[in-house]
């Protein structure tokens, strides 16, 4: 039993490794360009070469912005090509199941998406600090960041608040990735295969709209809130929040997590049962 589960884990790691290697052939090039641009920016600043500095700023902002779209493109392109193109003959005959095939793609490309967003925010932050300094403002970034949390009565609440927003961010990216994968898989069943690109767009849009409508009504009638109380307390409120303090709504993320699990298993089922590689 243990040997069998080790083999399953081993194959999953190999899938992750190979999916990562396949994706790592193009995406890191953009990061290298961005690093080069940031280096140019710092060199330009300290050597007082305004042209190099300006070029560094422009290129790093454009590339960090582009990276979000490049990552999104690869999320779609690699999934479509490696599973539903002719390469599917290779992928679907590997000694793994469809949940492993799908799980590996979600993890690897979800990671690239998260990295690209974090990278974009970091690049903008670096440049924002620089620009503020250039305009003569001496700002202590750490204290200015903490001033946003000045109203929180305890450190535990600050940590909770930060974790809440980080998890929110990951949940949204994961949700979008899985919805896109579900839509692409469904668009490749026989009924939709001829115009699969159009169907993939329609299905993605429909899934997002249905999700948003569900979230709206769930929040309206079955709201779940984490309330960071003024008296340093943490309480959960259901329905209309009555406790005093900062209310963090949990229902959208609970819904998205459940939705992601459902879409994951439905997509794996479609890949296993309904796909015929041409």
């Amino acid at each position, binding site marked *: 039993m243990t040997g069998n589960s080790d083999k399953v884990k081993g*194959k999953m790691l*190999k899938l992750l*490794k*190979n999916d990562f290697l*396949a994706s790592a*052939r193009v995406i890191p090039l953009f990061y290298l360009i961005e690093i080069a641009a940031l280096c140019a920016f710092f060199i330009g600043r300290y050597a007082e070469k305004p042209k190099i500095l300006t070029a560094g700023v422009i290129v790093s902002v454009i590339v960090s912005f582009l990276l979000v779209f490049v990552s999104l493109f690869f999320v779609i392109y690699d999934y479509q*090509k*490696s599973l539903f193109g*002719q*390469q*599917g*003959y*290779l992928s*679907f*005959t*590997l*000694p*793994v*199941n469809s949940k492993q095939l799908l799980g590996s793609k979600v993890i690897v490309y979800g990671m690239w998406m998260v990295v690209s967003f974090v990278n974009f925010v970091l690049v903008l932050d670096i440049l924002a600090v620089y620009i503020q300094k250039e305009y003569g403002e001496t700002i202590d970034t750490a204290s200015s960041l903490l001033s946003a949390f000045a109203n929180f009565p305890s450190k535990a609440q600050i940590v909770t608040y930060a974790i809440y927003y980080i998890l929110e961010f990951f949940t949204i990216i994961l949700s979008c990735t899985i919805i896109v994968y579900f839509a692409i898989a469904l668009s490749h069943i*026989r009924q939709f295969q001829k115009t699969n690109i159009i169907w993939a767009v329609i299905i993605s849009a429909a899934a997002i709209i249905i999700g948003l409508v569900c979230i709206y009504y769930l929040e309206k009638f079955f709201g779940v809130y984490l309330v960071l109380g003024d008296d340093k307390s943490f309480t959960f409120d259901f329905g209309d929040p009555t406790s005093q303090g900062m209310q963090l709504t949990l229902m959208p993320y609970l819904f998205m997590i459940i939705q992601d699990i459902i879409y994951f298993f439905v997509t794996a089922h479609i890949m*296993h*049962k*309904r796909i*015929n*590689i041409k």
Partner: protein
Amino acid sequence: MSEIIKINGLTKSYGSNRVLNNVSFSLEDGQIIGLLGPNGSGKTSLIKILTGLINDYSGEVLVDGLKPGAKTKSMVAYLPEKTYLASWMTADDAVKYIADFYDDFDLDKAMKMLDTFQLPHKQKARTMSKGQQEKLQLILVMCRNAKIYILDEPMGGVDPAARDFILASIIKNRPEGSTLMMSTHLIHDIEGVLDSIVMIGRGKLLMQDTVAHLTSTGKTVNEVFKEVFASDWQF
């Protein structure tokens, strides 16, 4: 000998088009089997079911006693008629990729075969000629010590000299005791190496026999094939 493939009442449809209709047969291991039939007879669909590429069918399909799935995929070496290599893969990448997933893959043998077949290790698959890609895919399949080899039209679309080369490579590299199933309509080229045949037409099993029994009547497999399918091509 034991039963390596068992098919019972297999039916597969694409919408209203029934490509396999209540097909039943079983195959003993250790043989070279020709899966014969004209284009559109259901050979590729049957192969896709055996290799776990198609899973929505009715009837029973067993490969070494198991329903096609992750476990049977580890014992089946499959050569599709399409080129399936990723565009980023070089010959070396492809060989290492397969070695990663299949415990029965002989990496050293594959590296040597790349040289024997004069395939550049570092050339990307997308820039290779069709012949080079077919050779590479053949290496990926025949360097496995698999229990079952399923080859879909391995000699389709290549010239007669290449056909001989491909067939010789398959026979030479097939491990003793393994089962080899080849689908083709180029019967003349392969009938000399076959132990038995399965003939499929119009979605039905039309004939299953040993080559020794068939040829004992004085006819070749090619002639029997023409007799069976002659009615499809009458004016």
